[in-house]
């Protein structure tokens, strides 16, 4: 909640805005993913979240997404051939019967990219934390 608040504050500070259309479009997409409006309503009710709270949450997440896209160089997180080969080599040293590289290349590339994105996100949060006043009471 503290990291989210820091990211929301930083997003607002950098002038990022989320429109009602953005929120409606995202909610429509979520409804489609989960299997319709009724399923979404049931899931929200199961976790005790009102539709209004859900809209606010979507708004926050969209704001953070826009902020991260602006502040994190996603292209730099793509896995290189060397990194994929090196990760495969390491995995094959500790795993018996590992499938051929061609079969799991995409999985390895995704994992490497996700790890890099996570690292960039952690660095960004750390930077925001270092310049913030945070009190845990």
């Amino acid at each position: 909640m503290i990291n989210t608040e820091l990211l929301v504050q930083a997003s607002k500070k950098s002038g990022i805005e989320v429109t009602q259309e953005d929120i409606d479009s995202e909610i429509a997409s979520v409804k489609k993913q989960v299997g319709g409006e009724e399923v979404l309503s049931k899931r929200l009710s199961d976790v005790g979240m009102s539709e209004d709270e859900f809209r606010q949450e979507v708004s926050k997440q969209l704001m953070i997404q826009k902020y991260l896209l602006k502040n994190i160089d996603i292209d730099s997180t793509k896995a290189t051939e060397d990194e994929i080969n090196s990760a495969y080599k390491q995995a094959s040293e500790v795993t018996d019967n590992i499938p051929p590289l061609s079969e799991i290349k995409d999985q390895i590339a995704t994992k490497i990219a996700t790890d890099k994105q996570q690292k960039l996100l952690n660095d960004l949060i750390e930077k925001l934390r270092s310049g913030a006043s945070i009190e845990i009471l």
Partner: protein
Amino acid sequence: MEEKEEKNNTSATGKYKKAIFLLVAIVVFAGLIYVSVSFFGLGEGNKVAAKVNGNQILQSELQKRFDQDKKTAVSQGVDTSNPETVKQVKSKILKS
């Protein structure tokens, strides 16, 4: 002389009554505050869990988030009946 003494007594009784009335009023007022705090959400839930650049995160928001994440935590084998575990999970949620 007797009349003056009686006047003094009446005045003292009046002051005594006023003091009692004031005391009762304070007790009633304190009671009303207690009731408000206990039953109308001005208590524990509205305590501040954290402040981020002056913006407050309330205990009630943390509790709500914990309740929302509880199902997932239980499905991952987290024992949410253990107060120490609950404390750790809440701390993790708060910092997230």
